Every structure is written in structure tokens, then in C-alpha cells.
């Protein structure tokens, strides 16, 4: 992996983006969906077995901002974890950019997580004694970049999220909103084509959440594909599409 990465498209994508194919006939063969879930479900063994996610179908195109809503324990986080290759589905089929993830080994899944997927968790999960810069640089550690390049890249990312001045501040000394922005910067470190956010504003009040929402909108405007599990009305309003998960029914319904 090299740095700086190629910048995503500056024009917000309102239609599914098609890549040109040889012979100029790309419009006949649209590119695969970024995410294609077919009856994806997750259950954990036990007495009785625990269904964390009822089977669901979902297709996400390039450039969409999808908000996933639902009550508690409806499987929002589990859905994002499956999409983010952090967890394996028990049933169904998951295609990521046309690649069937069922046959991927742990090494390949880890590599995809590092290169194509950025994850923003509900809690920032920063290393409290390390600086904001070092926390962001951590995401590039396993990409094989040398230390100086990692630090420069981290400073650039912090600048994008408006925290260039806090680069050397220890994570434990940042505000809740600043920590979440550092987490977003870290998620962008590998220039992922897909950004997954699990309740990014859940632990923030209205004033603190606003910069996060603005940042996410800016990233979407720059062409990234974003999935957000959220119950924040302000975030839901920003989505190009909203999906609801219901835990009560035997199967989830996608709207």
C-alpha cells in the first residue's frame, strides 16, 4: 500500500457508479453492488440457540448512504459486523464487490478489513495513553508503512476531520466528540471504499453529535459508500435510503 492514496471522486454519487469496460459497452454490464447480502443470518449455539440476526437480503450500491435502524437487539450491530467481516454469518451468502466472502480464509478477511473497509464503533476504542496521531497511525501499522509515513498520513487525516491541532494530545484528554472524530480519521486511514459506522453518535449529545454528522455527510459527498447503524433522527435524515430491522418477526424485513 502506498501513501498518499488516490482521492475518492469529488462529485457526490447520486446514481450507481459504472466503471467503463472495454469496447465502450459498460452501460450494458453495470458493476457489482458493493454489498450483496442474500438471506444472511447469524445464530449462536446454546440452549436455546440465540438468533443475533434474522435472515436478511440487502444490496448496497456504490456511493449510497444507508442508515440501518431498529430496536435494541434487532441485529443492527451484528449486520454491520458481518458486512465488516468481523463476524461470519451462520446462513446466507455475502458478496463484497462481487467477491464471495464465504470461501475467504482468516488471512484474506483480515486483509480486506485493512484495505477496503473502515469501521467506526459506537465507542471510539482509542488507546487512552497514546496521542490522537498515534491512534490514527495504528490503522496503518499493519499495512506495512514505515513509521514516518504513518505519522504523516495520520496528521493529514486528522486535518481532514478538523483535529490537526490535537494531534499530539493524549486520547484520554480529548472530548467525546473529538475522540469519535479521531476514530473516524482512523477508519479512513486505509482509504476504504466502504465505511461502516455503528451508532457513531450514540454517546454524544446534540451539540457534540453535529460535527460528526457533518463529517459523515462530507465523506458521503466525496463519494464514499457508508452504512450507519443508528437511531439518531438527524443521521437517519441524511441517508439516501433507510433500512429497518425487526427482531420480533421470524425474518427481518427490509424497507
Amino acid at each position, binding site marked *: 500500500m502506498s501513501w498518499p492514496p488516490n482521492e475518492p471522486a469529488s462529485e457526490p454519487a447520486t446514481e450507481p457508479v459504472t466503471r467503463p469496460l472495454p469496447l465502450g459497452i459498460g452501460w450494458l454490464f453495470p458493476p457489482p453492488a458493493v454489498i450483496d447480502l442474500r438471506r444472511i443470518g447469524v445464530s449462536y449455539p446454546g440452549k436455546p440457540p440465540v438468533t443475533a440476526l434474522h435472515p436478511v437480503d440487502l444490496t448496497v450500491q456504490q456511493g449510497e448512504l444507508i442508515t440501518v435502524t431498529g430496536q435494541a437487539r434487532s441485529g443492527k450491530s451484528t449486520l454491520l459486523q458481518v458486512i465488516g467481516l468481523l463476524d461470519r454469518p451462520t446462513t446466507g451468502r455475502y458478496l463484497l464487490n462481487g467477491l464471495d466472502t464465504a470461501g475467504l480464509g482468516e488471512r484474506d478477511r483480515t486483509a480486506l*478489513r485493512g484495505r477496503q473497509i473502515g469501521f467506526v464503533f459506537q465507542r471510539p*476504542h482509542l488507546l487512552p495513553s*497514546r496521542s490522537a496521531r498515534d491512534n490514527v497511525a495504528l490503522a496503518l501499522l499493519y499495512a506495512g508503512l514505515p513509521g514516518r509515513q504513518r505519522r504523516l498520513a495520520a496528521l493529514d487525516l486528522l486535518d481532514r476531520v478538523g483535529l490537526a491541532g490535537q494531534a499530539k494530545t493524549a486520547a484520554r484528554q480529548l472530548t467525546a466528540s473529538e475522540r469519535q472524530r479521531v476514530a473516524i480519521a482512523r477508519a479512513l486511514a486505509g482509504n476504504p471504499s466502504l465505511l461502516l459506522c455503528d451508532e457513531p453518535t450514540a454517546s454524544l449529545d446534540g451539540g457534540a453529535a453535529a460535527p460528526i454528522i457533518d463529517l459523515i455527510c462530507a465523506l458521503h459527498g466525496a463519494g464514499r459508500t457508508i452504512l450507519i447503524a443508528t437511531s439518531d433522527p438527524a443521521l437517519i435524515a441524511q441517508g439516501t435510503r433507510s433500512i429497518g430491522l425487526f427482531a420480533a418477526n421470524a425474518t427481518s424485513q427490509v424497507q
Partner: protein
Amino acid sequence: MLARPLRSLLTAAGTLLVVASFVAVLGIASSAAAQVASAFNQRLPTEVRMAAVQTGRSAVADPFPADVERRLDRLNGVLAAGVYWRVPVGTADVSPMVFAASPGFLQAAGAQVDQGRLFGTGDQARAAPVCLVGARAARALGISRLDHQPAIIINDLPCTVIGLISQVRHQPWIMRSVLMPSTTATTIWGSPGDAAGAQPVVLIETRPGAAALVARQAPLAVSADNPGQFLVTVPPSPWHLRSQVNTTLGGLYGALAGVCLLIGALGIGNMTLIAVRERTAEVGLRRALGARRRHIAVQFLAESALLGLLGGLAGTNLGVGAVLLVAIGRGWTPVIAPLTVLPAPLIGAAAGLLAGLYPSWRASHIEPARALSEYPAA
């Protein structure tokens, strides 16, 4: 590792104690072994006795040349040498016994007088009618002072008592005997061997540890053409016993040191496991960011080994200090082998590495999804 300095310090302290106890146990063992060796060295044989081989009832003519003492003094390791034999005075059960002895014999036996003097080369040359009396013999004879020049009548020959022997290093029978110069005895009774039972014996005092070598060389030095005519006796050496004692002690202390290492390694492993549990969220985060299992395993192994190395360095110093304190307290000479101290920090690192194997394996198999959802943020 730096995020929780107290936890890291405690883990390193575990290695410190392990290595310190390891170094201390081995250092005390080697110091104790040195003490044992010193004690045994003090009991090494330092005397050799050489006599003619008895071939029959008849006496053997004097097998020793006149310069036997000079010949033996030239051997490396010999401190003194001399000849003695029992003089046939009256019946065999006469007490005290009378012996003829050369001045060299008195040196070899380590005879000391508290009154008077020992007879020397001058008395030997003149065949002077003088004698020395051992302390027990003097009490039996009623001799306690020499200022009135007591004399002992031996075969109608008055012999002036010139010294009372108060102690000897070898041949304790001297204390209950009367000794006269060998030339005086020869003048009265002839050479040893002329009379039945008067067999000359050479006594050689050697340096500690040289007795065995001198015993092999002495017959050749005295009679190169017929060394087999002599029977040489040396008291048994305690080398074998010392070797057994050291081996047993060494094994005991080595086992003790091994137990210390094992217990310490278990403690380090336990603390590392706890650290893995506390850092589950961090591990999940790293895995989510693209860390492979081997990255996580190497991280925890490296931390464990580093803490072990740091603990080993400090523990080595502490162990050496403990050995010094014990040695000073016991009055021993502290002995610490370089092979005990130099690899000790590496032993600490190895202990940390071994102790971290299972915890690092556990850490590398943490599932990121569960780790991030079940455990609080780092």
C-alpha cells in the same frame, strides 16, 4: 505495555524475583561448595610413610641410603623427610617406648617443644647422648622441668633430656615415647636391621594434595634400581567423598533453582493471561484494523520477553547482592560463577517468552466482534 505501567512493573517484578532467586540459589550453592572444598582441603593427606617390604622373619638390612633425607627433600611437594625406628630396649612391653629418629623426622612429624629444644644436625653428627620425651611419657616418668637436667638411663647409658615435646602434627605415638638421635642409637645398637624388629621407616611430610604424587616418586628417588623394595602408604584421600558431597549439593541446589524458575514462570504466565483479558478490546480493535493473528501473538510475546529481560537484569543484581549478604553473614568467601550471572538476564527473557506462549496464543484467537462488543473501550 506502557499504558499500564503498574501492571507491567508487577509482571517484570515477577521475573525479577525468579531470576534473583535463581542467581541467589546457584551463588549460595557455589559459595557453599567452596566452603566444603576448603574444609576438605584441610583434611587432605600430607604424610607418606615408606618402609622396606618384609620378606621373612629376619630383619632387612638398612634399605635407606645415608642421604635418604636429602634425596627426598628434592622432590616437588616435600616439606620435610626423616627416618625413625624403634629401638630394642629390654622387653617389648617396656613403656615408654624408645625410638631413634633423625632431625628430619622431627620436622616431618611437626614436633614442637614447650621446654628445651629439639635435637638437630649437631647432635646427630656427634651422636650425642640426648633425648626428647613426649608429654605423656614425661608425666609417666615424672619429668616436668628441665632446669635440673634430668636424664633417662637407656641400656645403662644416661641420656640427657633436652626437650619435652608438647605437640605433633603427625605420628601421635611420639607423645608417649622417648626419641633419641638416630646416630646415637646406631652407636649403641648398630644400624637398623641389625636387630630383630628394628625396621626403619621414612616419614615424609608433603604439601596438601601432593601426597599421592610423592608416594609414587619417593621409591624411585631413594632407590632407582630397585624401587619395588619399598612399601609406601598414604592415608586415604577425601577427594571422592568431597566429590560426592559436591555432586549431591549441586544437584540439590540445581533442582531448587529449577523449581524457582518454574514457579516464577507460572506466575508470569498468569499475570500475562490477566493482561490479555484486560486488553481484549485492544486486541479486537487491532484485529479490526487489519492485524493478523501472528501480529497479535508476536506483540504479546515481545512484551512478555521484554519484561522478562528487564526483570532478569534487575534480578541478576538482586541475586548477586543476596549471595554477598549471605556469604558475609556466614563468614564465607562469596563464589559466583560467571556462567550463573552472565546468562541470567537471558534466562529472564526466556522465562518471559515461555510464560507468554499460551497467553499470546489466547490473544491471537480473540474474535474481534465479540471483543469489541463485550468489553469496554480501552
